[in-house]
């Protein structure tokens, strides 16, 4: 198991490194732009107009965590990563069938459970996603240092990475609540498994499978979206209490994961072909 996971992970590692570097490069530029424009528009222009340092701080506040993620450019690489991950969910399977070589033959002929292939691919995707999320967290510390290098220290407020997360959309990938964090990635895993269902169905039944899989995903997505709309869009307050919503979410997750898993296992063991 660990060997195959290692093998799969090594195959995607270059992509992971590439994405990490790309994210850092673009976000660094974004942070530098935000910081320099703050320095220019808030500090220097007001100093020219005769305000004192104290007055500037009193009027505009300090340079805080919020400014780091202010520029939209900051979230561009996050979006790109999401797209690449979505692509790699499909890529990690189809590359073993496509081209002059058909590695899927070898994978399926390994003297171990077929599900090992499935787990290896699923875990590879999840590890890649988590790596990107946490490397983003690591980068926030670097951006704080960069901002401190550019701005005079009198203007610097709290540049705590926790604040950068809780005051921006970054909380989607790094939820400050531990339970929410774990739920987010468990739901993410379920999403990846459902995409795998689609792929395995297509591999097993070709176009018909794609149709069945698409219908399955459509029904599930409609149910979930319908529920959310019912809870939040037409009502001022959701019908269910949060504690009840947690139970509903856990049950829904369990049922869907079980169905998806059993289906995927059936497809892996009995249906997919080379």
């Amino acid at each position: 198991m660990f060997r195959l996971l290692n093998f799969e992970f090594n195959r995607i590692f270059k992509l992971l490194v590439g994405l990490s570097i790309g994210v850092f490069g673009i976000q660094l530029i974004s942070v530098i732009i935000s910081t320099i424009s703050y320095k220019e528009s808030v500090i220097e222009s007001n100093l020219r107009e005769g305000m004192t340092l104290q007055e500037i701080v009193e009027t505009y506040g300090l340079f805080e965590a919020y400014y780091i993620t202010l520029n939209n450019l900051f979230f561009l690489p996050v979006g790109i990563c999401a797209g690449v991950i979505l692509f790699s969910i499909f890529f990690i399977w189809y590359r073993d069938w496509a081209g002059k070589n058909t590695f899927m033959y070898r994978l399926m002929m390994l003297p171990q459970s077929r599900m090992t292939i499935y787990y290896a691919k699923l875990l590879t995707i999840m590890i890649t996603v988590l790596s990107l999320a946490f490397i983003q967290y690591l980068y926030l510390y670097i951006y704080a240092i960069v901002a401190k290098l550019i701005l005079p220290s009198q203007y610097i407020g709290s540049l705590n990475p926790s604040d950068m997360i809780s005051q921006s959309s970054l909380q989607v990938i790094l939820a400050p609540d531990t339970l929410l964090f774990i739920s987010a990635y468990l739901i993410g895993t379920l999403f990846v498994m459902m995409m795998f269902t689609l792929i395995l169905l297509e591999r097993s039944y070709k176009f018909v499978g794609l149709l069945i899989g698409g219908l399955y995903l459509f029904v599930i997505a409609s149910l979930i979206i319908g529920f959310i709309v019912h809870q939040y869009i037409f009502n001022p307050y959701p019908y269910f209490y949060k504690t009840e919503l947690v139970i509903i979410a856990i049950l829904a997750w369990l049922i869907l994961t079980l169905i998806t898993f059993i289906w995927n296992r059936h497809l892996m063991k009995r249906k997919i072909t080379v």
Partner: protein
Amino acid sequence: MIEVKHIQKKFGRKTVLKDISFHAKEGHITCLIGINGSGKTTILKSIMNLMSVNRGEILIDGHQFTEAMYEKVAYVPDVLTMPLHMKIKDVFQFMRDFYKSWNDQRADELLTFFKLDKNERLKNLSKGNLAKANMLFGLALDVDYILLDEPFSGIDMFSREQIANVFTTDLVEGRGVILTTHEIHDIEYLIDEVVLLNNGFVVNQFNVEQMREEQGKSIVDVMREVLV
């Protein structure tokens, strides 16, 4: 012994294998012969459990297929089974990691036999060498049965000769081999058993030697009788 009993396989509405039964013995080279599209590859995939059959069963030494059988039966498909960016020695490492039956010594012997370079990447190999390497990855496993899908098609004459020669060495001898082909000219002398396929049925299974002694017919003679 590999026993194929009354298997049927449908692709959509098309029944490719209608009722196929034959057996292949250890130590014999059994050849599945049929025109293109007669379902030779499908049979091999079915034996390897790479494809499910609609009806019938396949027994290997009297047992149903399990994942552990991959240590006992090897399959060399007509395409490469390893990623192209790998070097031959990387593939060796991979096989060593995953198969108990991988035999390093035999792998090296085959490497010498086929005159291949361990440090070469697969994507830099010529078509003939690629076919040899592909075969090497199957033959270097200490398995009782080897299934080869069209080992001679689409490669140059000298490579073909080299591959044919390996069957007469102790690198293969003693094991059961099932191979498929649609033209048997160069390899007729290798074959012990023939299974003739047509229209999804086994038309005839016979021992080449026996056929020659008892009826004085070569494989081609029998094929002509049945297929034309």
